[in-house]
């Protein structure tokens, strides 16, 4: 018994920290031995246990106290090397922060399920017309259910505030504009959402002609109705028509496209007066693919097999009804996963995720390399300190622990800063109001997983890169290190050392990041540009829809005939024109035109034209000069296109495709049964986000376009957005008040809606691109900053380490210029090697990504020929890197040889 206790005691005593043992080890051992004999003789077993318990408790206490000392020491050393600490913490913070925010955005947008949906993985989405949707839905072997919805679309709602039950109570009527979905009755059952109060829509109850009903979201109920307990059953006015609230959705449910939240749901069976989007017999139109069709896949059916089956159904439907030109094109159905925050084609997912991984990987990689680099540099610099401490009796284990404590301290400081940065950046992101007509919610709350992974990687890297130099530097040959001082590490400098490799990798990684981000930014920008010869803020766009204001077709046509002339009278108005869509909106080139030959030649059939319907003096209002011929005038608006050929204007791309280099003026074109005569030629106007042919084709900024004149029949049947009145105003005048007066004078009941400037309109179309430009641009810049921090830190360190060598060189007669050149040459070699690798890597990654995806493809193709980027990015990086070398190099050229030599 006694012997066992003694053995345990010994073991524990030997486990005490090295320093404690050096001083008290023998005493503890002796006293313990004597005490054990004594205790056993006098008190027996219980006191022996107490003796062992005492030593077992003291053991961790001693270690903790040592840890506390280590931490205090580490804290002091970091304070004494603020540059080192700053580089480390900043690198980690930027790396973790940016990578987290960015990947969180991706995860939230792409990987997160639609809130409220049941089994969201089984939902698929496609664009379809309503009749087609009905046929799709009836494919019982494919789908267990299907729903169609349109939206988000705006509703003007008003309700009687009864007493204090509504916000701002006190009675009276409140009108608000909310966005919602126009849905088929199956909408909720397909998604798997049930009402938290009241009921959802039901195909049996909600039939055409039944009393108008609406379903509201929980958010609507909470925020606009102050969670009124009697909300269900109340009547609210939707676009001026009374409707009954039949149900309230569950919390968090914001419709089938949560990125653009829907607050209100209106069945497609509602009267047209309540939902103008239903005008023109939308429900029965077969060729308008306006509806989103959401289906729940039947068990065992995959997205691909459903896609193929729907393709056949579509082909049959097309054959049944539509003009034969249609089925020849082999229209395809594309099904997207429907249960996510935003629909992303599943083929694109690996590319998008690969993109995310590549960029976040590069960012974190650069941050880690920064850390590794400075840690290595610092470990070399501290060889002497380590050697001295070893020689005065510090244990190797203790020293490693000490160095590791410093790394851990640094890494955790960086990690904390990174987490703070991530939250700060995310909250900043949230405050950005996305300038789109439809509310968009970008949820960029840092994703917990992304944050943890980023922190884990960086902290692990921090510790790992701290450990490696700690291990090597504590294994040094004491005598030689102490004698040589700092000279020893000089040998490693020019060799193919780890540190040089890391520096090359760092430059390469940064350049890759810069290039890939640059490709995206430049690609987006070329696609976004509109060119008009005036400030787009000086053009006001106004939508008018007199037919929906109760005008007859005849009266509407008359109104538009006189409108431009009347508006010209308003102060500040320079020019007025009309169009059936805002200028520079995205176009889809789906028309097929035939260039009728001159006698003796063959007709030429070309596909993929976009059509724009525009009013008189459209191009001069946009300050675009005609290349040839004339543009439309008031007379063209009165042409009845049925008997005579309509005059058309072509853009240069269209003219080239139809007529080659021949003069297009007065040539004839046919589109199925209609004939056109070319009267003018205009340069290509960019139309951001346009595409040719199918919906998922690449976006291209310029598309062959044929411009048709607005005619009386267009005025009688205005598009859903109304006829756009485009008013160009003089700089600095507020013409809008005058325009309102003139319109009110014409008819006070005429409703102006969607009033905005051309600049706003363009922003609206390109907002997603603009956001991504900011994001990628930001990532590129952060990568650059990180790389510069790292390079500057490392160069400064290595130069500082070479003070003695440089001092000797200067003492032996080297001139300052020579010293400067030498240091710069060595840095430059590494920078050039890194740049070359990074350039190849960046271009290669861009090629790979563009080959893999039609989403990024065009931007990359555009940008990978951009000389500014291809030459500019490496130059920018290289010059910044050289600058980072230059500053310390210059400092060391000023070294006074005597001081440098004496110091060592």
């Amino acid at each position, binding site marked *: 018994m006694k012997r066992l206790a003694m053995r345990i005691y010994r073991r*524990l*005593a030997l486990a005490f920290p090295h320093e*404690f043992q050096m*001083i*008290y080890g*023998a*005493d*503890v051992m*002796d*006293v*313990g031995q*004597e*005490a054990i004999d004594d205790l056993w003789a006098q008190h027996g077993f219980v*006191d022996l246990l*107490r*003796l062992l318990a*005492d*030593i077992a*408790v*003291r*053991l961790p*206490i*001693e270690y903790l106290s040592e840890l506390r000392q280590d931490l205090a020491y580490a804290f002091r050393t970091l304070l004494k090397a603020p540059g080192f600490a700053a580089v480390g913490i900043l690198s980690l913070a930027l790396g973790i922060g940016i990578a987290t925010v960015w990947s969180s955005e991706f995860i939230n947008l792409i990987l997160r399920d639609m809130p409220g949906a049941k089994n969201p993985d089984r939902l698929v989405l496609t664009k379809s017309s309503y009749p087609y949707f009905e046929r799709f839905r009836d494919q019982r072997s494919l789908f267990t259910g299907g729903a169609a919805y349109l939206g988000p679309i705006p509703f003007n709602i008003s309700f009687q505030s009864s007493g204090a039950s509504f916000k701002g109570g006190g009675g009276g009527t409140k009108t608000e504009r909310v966005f919602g979905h126009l849905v088929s009755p199956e909408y909720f059952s397909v998604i798997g959402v049930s009402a938290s109060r009241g009921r959802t829509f039901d195909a049996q109850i909600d039939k055409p002609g039944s009393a108008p009903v609406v379903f509201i979201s929980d958010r609507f109920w909470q925020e606009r109705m102050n969670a009124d307990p009697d909300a269900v059953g109340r009547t609210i006015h939707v676009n001026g028509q009374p409707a009954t609230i039949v149900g309230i959705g569950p919390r968090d449910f914001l419709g089938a496209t949560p990125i653009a939240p829907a607050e209100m749901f209106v069945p497609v069976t509602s009267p047209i007066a309540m939902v103008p989007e239903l005008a023109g017999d939308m429900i029965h139109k077969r060729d308008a693919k306006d509806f989103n069709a959401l289906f729940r896949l039947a068990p065992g059916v995959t997205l691909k097999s459903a896609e193929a089956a729907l393709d056949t159904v579509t082909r049959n439907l097309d054959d049944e009804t539509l003009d034969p030109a249609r089925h020849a094109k082999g229209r395809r159905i594309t099904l997207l996963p429907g249960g996510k925050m935003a629909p992303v084609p599943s083929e694109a997912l690996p590319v998008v995720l690969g993109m995310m991984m590549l960029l976040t990987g590069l960012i974190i990689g650069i941050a880690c390399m920064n850390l590794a680099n400075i840690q290595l540099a610092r470990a070399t610099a501290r060889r002497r300190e380590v050697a001295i401490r070893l020689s005065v009796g510090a244990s190797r284990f203790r020293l490693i622990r000490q160095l590791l404590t410093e790394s851990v301290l640094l890494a955790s400081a960086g990690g904390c800063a990174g987490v703070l940065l991530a939250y700060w950046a995310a909250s900043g992101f949230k405050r950005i109001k996305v300038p789109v007509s439809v509310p968009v919610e970008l949820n960029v709350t840092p994703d917990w997983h992304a944050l943890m992974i980023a922190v884990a990687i960086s902290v692990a890297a921090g510790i790992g890169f701290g450990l490696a130099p700690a291990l090597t530097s504590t294994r040094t040959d004491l005598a030689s290190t102490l004698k040589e001082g700092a000279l020893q590490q000089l040998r490693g400098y020019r060799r193919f050392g780890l540190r040089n490799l890391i520096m090359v990798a760092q430059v390469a990684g940064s350049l890759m990041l810069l290039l890939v981000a640059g490709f995206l930014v430049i690609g987006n920008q070329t696609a976004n540009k509109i060119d008009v010869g005036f400030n787009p803020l000086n053009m006001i766009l106004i939508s008018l829809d007199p037919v929906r204001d109760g005008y007859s077709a005849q009266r509407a046509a008359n109104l538009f005939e006189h409108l431009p002339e009347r508006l010209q009278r308003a102060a500040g108005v320079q020019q007025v024109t009309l169009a059936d869509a805002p200028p520079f909106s995205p176009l889809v080139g789906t028309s097929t035109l035939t260039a009728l030959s001159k006698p003796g030649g063959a007709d030429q059939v070309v596909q993929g034209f976009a059509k724009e319907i525009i009013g008189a003096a459209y191009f001069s209002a946009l300050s675009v000069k005609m290349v040839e011929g004339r543009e439309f005038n008031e007379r063209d608006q009165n042409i009845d296109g049925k008997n005579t050929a309509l005059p058309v204007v072509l853009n240069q791309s269209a003219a080239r495709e139809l007529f080659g280099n021949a003069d297009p003026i007065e040539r004839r074109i046919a589109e199925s049964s209609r004939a056109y005569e070319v009267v003018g030629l205009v340069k290509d106007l960019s139309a951001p986000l346009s595409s040719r042919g199918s919906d998922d084709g690449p976006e291209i900024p310029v598309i062959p376009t044929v411009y048709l004149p607005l005619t009386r029949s267009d005025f009688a049947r205005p598009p859903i957005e109304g006829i756009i009145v485009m008013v160009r105003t003089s700089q600095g005048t507020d013409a809008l008040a005058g325009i309102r007066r003139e319109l009110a004078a014409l008819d006070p009941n005429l409703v102006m809606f969607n009033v905005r400037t051309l600049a706003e309109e363009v922003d609206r179309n390109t907002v997603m691109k603009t956001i991504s430009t900011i994001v990628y641009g930001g990532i590129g810049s952060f990568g650059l900053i990180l790389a510069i921090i790292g390079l500057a830190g490392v160069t400064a360190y290595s130069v500082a380490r070479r003070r003695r060598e440089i001092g000797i060189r200067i003492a032996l007669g080297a001139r300052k210029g020579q010293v400067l050149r030498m240091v710069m040459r060595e840095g430059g070699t590494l920078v050039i090697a890194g740049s070359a690798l990074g350039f190849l890597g960046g271009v290669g990654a861009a090629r790979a990504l563009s080959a893999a995806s039609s989403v990024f493809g065009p931007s990359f193709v555009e940008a990978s020929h951009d000389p500014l980027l291809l030459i500019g990015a490496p130059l920018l990086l290289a010059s910044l890197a050289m600058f980072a070398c230059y500053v310390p190099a210059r400092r060391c050229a000023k070294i006074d040889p005597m001081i440098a030599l004496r110091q060592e």
Partner: protein
Amino acid sequence: MPKVETFLPLKTTWFHIMLSLAGEDQHGYGIMQEVLDRTGGKVRLWPATLYGSLKRLIEAGLIEESGDRPKPALDDARRRYYRLTRLGRRVLDAESERLQELVRILQVKRGLEAL
């Protein structure tokens, strides 16, 4: 020099160790024995606690290792001897004053009760 008051009230272990060193220099085992004798076997400083406390007392500057060795006959060469520093003495004095004060207060209260 750190202020005396920062050490008050002294931890029991510390107080016992310092009390043992108030007379003459002692080694660890000696301190242990003295405390045991003084308290009639009620307080035993277990070895690990004893040396942990000695280490902290040295770090705090209250005691130090003694250079003087006892007479060769009594000297155990392997052992370290400890003594109070000047600060240690002042702290010990302050602590015993504090305790006396407490005792005095108690006596006054008792006296009042007796009346």
